């Protein structure tokens, strides 16, 4: 089993039995932030409680990245051809809309309002062979 680590240890725990995204809720106004915030962007209060965000959401908007992003910060290609990827904003009901990779198989297409669940995939391997894990969402349940 190769070594694995999260793309950012403050986004989610990895490895973990049931990994979830970390968010924070403002102790004063209840506003939910992602990633974890030190200060509330709605009311500026500086007391924020860390908690696990919902693992289920609905697709709010999406696009496909069809050209390779500049590297860095995007991982180097290591000679492999660039594979376009899908991303979007996922609404976690009652919490917040988060930017996310969208993982689809060949039979699935994105559409606004689609039900999604949290998923994790390897983004790239770093120089010493460690697999860097990123988060995303994937369709589930009643998808048209």
């Amino acid at each position, binding site marked *: 089993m190769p070594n694995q680590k999260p793309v950012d240890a403050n986004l989610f725990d990895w490895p973990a039995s049931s990994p979830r995204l970390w968010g924070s809720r403002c102790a004063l106004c209840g506003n939910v932030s992602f990633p974890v915030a030190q200060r509330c962007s*709605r009311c500026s209060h500086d007391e924020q409680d860390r908690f696990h965000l919902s693992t289920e959401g609905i697709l*709010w*908007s999406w*696009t*496909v990245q069809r*050209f390779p992003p500049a590297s*860095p910060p995007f991982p180097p290609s290591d000679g492999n051809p660039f594979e376009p990827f899908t*991303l979007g*904003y996922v609404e976690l009901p009652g919490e917040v809309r988060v930017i996310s990779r969208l993982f689809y198989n060949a039979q699935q297409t994105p559409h606004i309002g689609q039900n999604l669940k949290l998923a994790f995939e390897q983004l790239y391997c770093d120089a010493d062979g460690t697999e860097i894990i990123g988060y995303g969402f994937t369709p589930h349940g009643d998808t048209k």
Partner: protein
Amino acid sequence: MSTDVAIIGLGIHPFGRTPDKTGLQQCAIAVSDALKEANVAWNDVDFAFGGSTDAGNADTLVSELGLTGIPFMNVANGCATGGSALAAACNTIRSGAGKLGLVCGFDKHARGAFKVNPKEWGLGNWYGEEGFALTTQFFAMKIQRYMHDYGITEMTLARVAEKAFRNGALNPNAWRKTPISIDEILTSQMVNDPLRKYMFCSPSEGAVALLVCPASDAEKYTKTPIFVASCLMRTRRFGTLEVFSPSKAIEDQKTVTQDASKAAYEEAGIGPGDIDVAQIQDTESGAEIMHMAENGLCEDGEQEHMLAQGETDLDGKLPINTDGGCIANGEPIGASGLRQVHELCLQLRGTAGSRQVKASPKTGYAQVYGAPGVSGVTILNS
């Protein structure tokens, strides 16, 4: 406002690619043209504001223009750099601290999409490693949702781009001067769904310079002063969707452009119905469509029939992006907002040549938008 401000000299270096000149040199040329237009010397200018993102510090222009000792302040507000520089210059005139000011913006970007360092935008490196550090994705996701909510079609996206290239073909300073058909636009490469290659602007080069003075002094310099009715910028408020947002609140708020627009109309004492010609941020086709509504120039969804009926063409009811906008001029970040103001001045003077809008326009409107959620609005009167 206490003292009215007039724009009394204009200069522009053509946009596009100019491999033999630095950004600063392009700006020095634009400044020289503005000085000649107003029949003044660099020695007469008593303050300056300017900026660029990738082409050096604006205040080093004094090396090209002459070491006269004036205060020259650098402005860095992304795409709102030009608008912010003009706003600062207007405030300098109004306060009485200056009598003849230079406002300039220039840039020179490498080819391809802007390279983004997430840390400069307050984001962790993970944002780039996941593949989110691209401005183009934001515009795609914003218009994707807008099309879903308001019934805007792909054809309307294409019509915006087709108009931009058609207007660019009439503008000697534009980068893209060749018309491109709707069919070519709709079959061009998909870049970020639903946006295709010919719907996007590209980073480019260029420079613009303006000279400003108290309105009471304007006739010393020109027979055709243009008056600043409003010039301001705003940053985003909670709850709006902006470039480089890892998340967005579920509650929707007025956008930063709606905020800036409302404040500008109030400052000018007019409403959207008074606008005769407008230049609005068209980073890509979708941005022009959404900014039409955010600037109060139409209701959400009306863009579909307005574009189909040519209402925003040069001979339409409300001409928009008459010089080809960002799509035909590219986007040199520091210069882009002042390009809009330059074009409005030409239209209000009635000297825009073959792209002059039909009815003599009296009031013009300019709006820029940029990362990480800033918007600048300028309203001008002839």
